[in-house]
């Protein structure tokens, strides 16, 4: 058993670096149409930023940022965003996951497909971020904190 000990330098450096990692994660998610990246990578980078604060600041302070009880419901909401996008296209007359039939007025079919890809990537990123943080919290559940 290794004892956890708080360190001021690590805490301050993590507090400075963590928002920039979040900004890069959002860039990777929303710029996935034009360069390498996408929902999975962006969600994992976002989870890495949250886990950095969890490792550096300890359990109680990190609860202010992302609560433990939020993990599994947010993952379910992410998968439901994906499923709901496909189901909305199916209700509007197309096939399941055929984004060209999404019911938004004033767009061509190709632009509707681009919009559908963006919605799907947001769902994937939300689900991956929440599930990774939830797995970390479940792994630390039996560890006595000080």
């Amino acid at each position, binding site marked *: 058993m290794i004892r956890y000990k708080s360190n001021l330098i690590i805490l301050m450096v993590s507090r400075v670096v963590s928002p920039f990692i979040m900004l890069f994660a959002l860039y990777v998610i929303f710029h996935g149409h034009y360069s390498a*990246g996408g929902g*999975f990578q962006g969600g*994992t*980078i976002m989870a*890495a930023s949250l886990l950095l604060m969890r490792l550096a600041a300890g359990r109680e302070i990190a609860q202010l940022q992302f609560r433990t009880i939020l993990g599994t419901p947010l993952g379910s909401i992410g998968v439901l965003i994906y499923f709901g996008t496909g189901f909305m296209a199916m209700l509007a007359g197309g096939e399941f996951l055929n984004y060209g039939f999404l019911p938004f007025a004033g767009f061509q079919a190709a632009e509707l497909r681009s919009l559908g890809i963006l919605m799907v990537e947001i769902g994937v990123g939300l689900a991956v971020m929440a599930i990774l943080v939830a797995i*970390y919290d479940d*792994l630390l559940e039996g*560890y006595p904190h000080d």
Partner: protein
Amino acid sequence: MYWEIEIALFVFLIITAVLSLYIKDLLTAVVTLNAFSFISALIYIVMGAIDVGFTEAVVGAGVTGIFFVVLIFQTYRRSID
């Protein structure tokens, strides 16, 4: 085309894989496993698969190391065998 870089990366890949198998200290083994994952991400990028390399660098060298370190914190640091 870049065969010198690829051969050097493959040599480092085999070295880090064998090191992470034979080291007794588990924390050092986790660090060498992260190095293995990062070098394999570099190999993917040299071969032209940018997305796969990005995913490997983020997941294999980032989050997996955190999970392994948490598991080592809950158990023992030295390997038994």
